């Protein structure tokens, strides 16, 4: 009964996939190019920055991919990142344990899922409007609470150690930079295939896709649409909150108000660009990480540094715009953004 997505047979879809691959490849080729022109340190520097900037984005994008696949367009990602980061900072500062910080972020993610699920799934609040208000609420609340609860904790905090991977980190040149990351970074890249497997090959993934495409049909087939969406939103919020925690625990060691800095919105763009495929999400998230890293590297390279720096500073946003225009008419989950209303549920 259910016609499921992921059909790569359609010509349009194949063309779009090709366009995406070419785009990602073109941007990815800039690293070797800069490496070749400006030397090894510049190339390695871009690699290191790109990975650091990609990891939080990757967590957030993988989460968002699942909820969007289930038909919930959560625009409030930005807010979940903030709550996750705030909880991680609070947990680790109070206990001195980074693990508890991560745990606090997961709890915060679940609480966010409770609020967002209540809004989106119980009260059928419009997902765009509700998500934006949730984002504002998170920004205001974390900023207000930062002063009484995290004052004096800024900076100097412990952050996660880098764990060199046994064999890979001994690869000459690239190894020490690329394969020496924090646990959260490895996990992020590991979660991509895991998410892919769940979505594509598990019973739950089948339900998610069904619920995102034809909730009515899924309901008729006995799938509890709302329950599936609740789980998807819960999964999403935990992933996104861990992304926020990664921002704190792996980079800054501290919470700063508004530290999400638009990453949530970029995550939504990443998901759409990647056609909801978690494996492709890695490439797309890395592309945005690279665009941000280049933003700074390009300002200081000879030759290009006479260009107004505003061009480079708006690079990630311009890339997003171009990319979103390219994926126009993408194969959006049919029911994305539309609350489920069971026939006769409200009569």
């Amino acid at each position: 009964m259910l016609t499921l997505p992921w059909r790569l047979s359609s010509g349009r879809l194949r063309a779009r996939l090709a366009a995406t691959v070419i785009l990602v490849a073109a941007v990815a080729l800039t690293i070797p190019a800069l490496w070749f022109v400006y030397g090894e340190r510049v190339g390695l520097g871009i690699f290191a920055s790109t990975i650091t900037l990609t990891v939080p984005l990757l967590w957030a994008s993988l989460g968002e991919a699942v909820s969007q696949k289930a038909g919930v367009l959560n625009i409030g990602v930005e807010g979940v990142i903030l709550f996750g980061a705030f909880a991680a900072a609070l947990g680790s500062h109070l206990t001195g344990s980074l693990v508890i910080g991560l745990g606090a972020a997961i709890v915060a993610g679940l609480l966010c899922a409770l609020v967002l699920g209540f809004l989106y799934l119980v009260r059928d609040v419009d997902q765009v409007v509700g998500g934006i208000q949730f984002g504002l609420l998170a920004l205001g609340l974390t900023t207000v609470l930062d002063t009484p609860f995290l004052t004096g904790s800024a900076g100097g905090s412990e952050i996660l150690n880098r764990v060199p991977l046994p064999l890979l980190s001994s690869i000459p040149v690239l190894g020490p930079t690329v394969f020496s990351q924090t646990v959260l970074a490895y996990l992020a890249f590991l979660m991509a295939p895991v998410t892919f497997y769940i979505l594509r090959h598990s019973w739950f993934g089948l339900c998610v896709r069904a619920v995102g495409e034809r909730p009515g049909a899924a309901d008729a087939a006995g799938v509890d649409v709302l329950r599936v969406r609740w789980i998807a939103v819960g999964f999403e919020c935990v992933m996104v909150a861990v992304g926020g925690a990664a921002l704190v625990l792996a980079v800054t060691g501290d919470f700063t108000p508004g530290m999400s800095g638009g990453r949530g919105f970029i995550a939504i763009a990443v998901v759409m660009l990647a056609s909801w495929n978690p494996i492709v999400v890695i490439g797309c998230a890395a592309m945005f990480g690279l665009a941000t890293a280049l933003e700074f590297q390009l300002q200081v390279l000879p030759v290009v540094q006479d260009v107004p720096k505003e061009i480079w500073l708006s690079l990630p946003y311009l890339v997003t715009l171009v990319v979103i225009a390219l994926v126009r008419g993408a194969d959006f989950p049919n029911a994305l953004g539309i609350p489920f209303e069971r026939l006769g549920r409200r009569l």
Partner: protein
Amino acid sequence: MQVHSGPTTRAVSCLTVAALIITACTAGTASPAGGTPGATGGTPAATAGTGDFKVALIVSDKCDDHSWGQAHCSGAQTGAANTGANLVIAEEVVTPQDVTQQGTAFANQGFNLIVVANGGVPQAVHQLALDFPNVMFCQHGSPMTGNVVDYPPNLCTYLVQFQDGSFVAGALAGYLTETGKVATIGGFDFSVINLQMEAFRLGARYVNPSVQSNTLVINDLYDVSKGYAAATAQYAAGADFIFSGTDQATVGFMKAAEEAGPGQYVVATMWDSNFLSPTTVITSATFNLDGATQRIIEMAARGDLENRHYPFGPEYGSLEITPYYGLASVVPDDVDRKVKEISAAIATGKLVVPIMTTANDSEDFDISTLPPPPQ
């Protein structure tokens, strides 16, 4: 379409759930704080005072940022404590409109002195001074406001001569650099930030004319990830000393310096930040920034504050850079002596650091017009 129709039960349950969730979001994350949240809450920024003199500080950052915000808050708290003034601090007031609202609110509550530590809002503060002639306003952070002629009787501006300490720090970097490259990273292309960064670059070139330097901005004062990425870019481009024109993003520089290996250093600004990363923060140019704000409050309490521009030069500590702490071994005695001599030359007026407020101004400056560096 559907407006829920079983009002009482469902509405009450909704209210309860919403209240639970949102208090959970606030209190839930807060509860590990131990004890009652209210006790840890309150207003750490507001120092209770007994006096009738009421001082407000409107600052663009947070009071715990180890930088601009912390220096102003700390100075204001000391000033208020010394004079017995009642101090309230409004943190993170950034936009001109917000400064206007916040200033109006303070003025209406009978505050006597309102200090605005935000370089971007001179017009807003000027307008406030016109609107509230009975309240003294003093604004910090806009270079060259000293040239503004029109000061209503209740407006003053002050500016720490950031170029002095930055120049000295630049000289230190110029002597020590092994790659022959130093760099600066700014939050924004703002004149008060360029003032420091360009003086740093000039200081390095002054003692070592072959030193190359460049600057970049990250469009954010706080984003540590961006600071990390930018500093990584600068170290990769060959710089071994990076001067910070940001606030909290400096923490990212330190992380990048730690990763880039030994021999990569950070020059922090505004607040002594060595404790954040003892192996990379070679010094912090503090400019005695907190002392300036403290002094303004003390002058106001005495009734000495006039409607003019107050520069805070070497006599008020604008040359202050912190000791090298654990990195003292990196600085040869010879270099330390020369740096102190440059400092003394600025203090005695033999060496005047030029004011440069546009990015890359220092590249065009002719260093032969300055007295020769110490040998």
